[in-house]
């Protein structure tokens, strides 16, 4: 897909045609292709445990519309989800359930710790609260805030997408992808 459709003077068009097949065919590696698919269809498991879940809902609602990132299918069954968003205070009583739900999610899976409580325990320095959900499950992205804005959560999801694409290459011993430039397609 060419990004210069607006300024297609005859000279530009000739230059584009000279590029030959590259104009019409996009080559990639299988790892990148799979990562691209995963990236744009993250199905989050909303682990809404407290007030952060309200912002999580706001992120899914029309104003912020996480469907633009392909992550609008919130799955309430861990079997269908690949991104757990831990939104809220993880009490010691809830921690085994969080762990179990995480274990039920199929690989590959990612975890976002949303907000102060899930990231570090926040203001609940208490005997009854885990000091961060990473005491129980591995966390990929931490989002500060109490609660974070929906934008921050979208940033977190974009971070997971980057991480995912990078790890897909690393797993196969490939060099990191070149930074994306305008007009090279998704």
């Amino acid at each position: 897909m060419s990004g210069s459709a607006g300024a297609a003077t005859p000279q530009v068009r000739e230059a584009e045609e000279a590029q030959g097949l590259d104009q019409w065919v996009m080559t990639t590696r299988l790892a990148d292709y799979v990562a691209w698919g995963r990236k744009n269809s993250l199905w989050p498991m909303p682990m809404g445990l407290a007030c952060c879940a309200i912002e999580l809902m706001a992120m899914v609602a029309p104003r912020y519309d996480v469907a633009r990132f392909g992550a609008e299918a919130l799955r309430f069954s861990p079997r269908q989800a690949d991104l757990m968003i831990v939104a809220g205070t993880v009490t010691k009583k809830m921690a085994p359930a969080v762990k179990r739900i995480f274990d039920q999610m199929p690989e590959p899976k990612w975890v976002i710790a949303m907000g102060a409580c899930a990231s570090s325990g926040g203001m609940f320095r208490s005997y009854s609260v885990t000091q961060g959900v990473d005491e129980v499950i591995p966390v990929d992205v931490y989002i500060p805030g109490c609660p974070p804005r929906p934008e921050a959560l979208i940033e977190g999801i974009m971070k997971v997408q980057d991480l995912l694409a990078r790890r897909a290459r690393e797993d196969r011993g490939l060099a990191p992808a070149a930074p994306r430039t305008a007009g090279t397609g998704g």
Partner: protein
Amino acid sequence: MPLNGTPVRRPAKTGLLAATYLPSILKGMWITLRHIFRRKVTMQYPEETWRLPDNYRGLPALVRDDEGRVKCVACFLCEYVCPPKAIAIQAQEITTGVEKGPRAFDINMLRCIMCGYCEEVCPEQAIFLTRESTTVGLSRAEMIFDKEKLLQMGGTRPDPIKKWARLTQGTPATGVPSVAAGRGGAS
């Protein structure tokens, strides 16, 4: 035994058409269709951002005065007042010989709840909440911001009182009692 009160009014028996659900389905689809032509409310986030109010409370940051000095004097009030104990300060004597300053000033942004108590309590107006609200991190260590990072985030805030100039040159500013005069008056 029958319960007291009026009996529940049941709706009239639905007709054959309603029993096919078609009118309800069409009605629902009509509502969906109408939304296509409505004003779009979606904010295209990374390209388009919400205009946060001026008093929005985001991540806290340290500021310098207009002469580039760190305004914080390591009085530990913010560390004391911080509800989640996100702030950790180490003090040191500073070479200009007037007061002490922070050797280390770490804020754990994952603990911070952006309540603004630190800004409110600070006697030197050295810590402010920025409007930064979309920072995310990949590890806990990355989200503990040190002094340099906090000062970089905070930037410069002009200080009309010029306390430093007064203390270093020993000339009392007009209208404001000097530290020496204040001590004399108290004793």
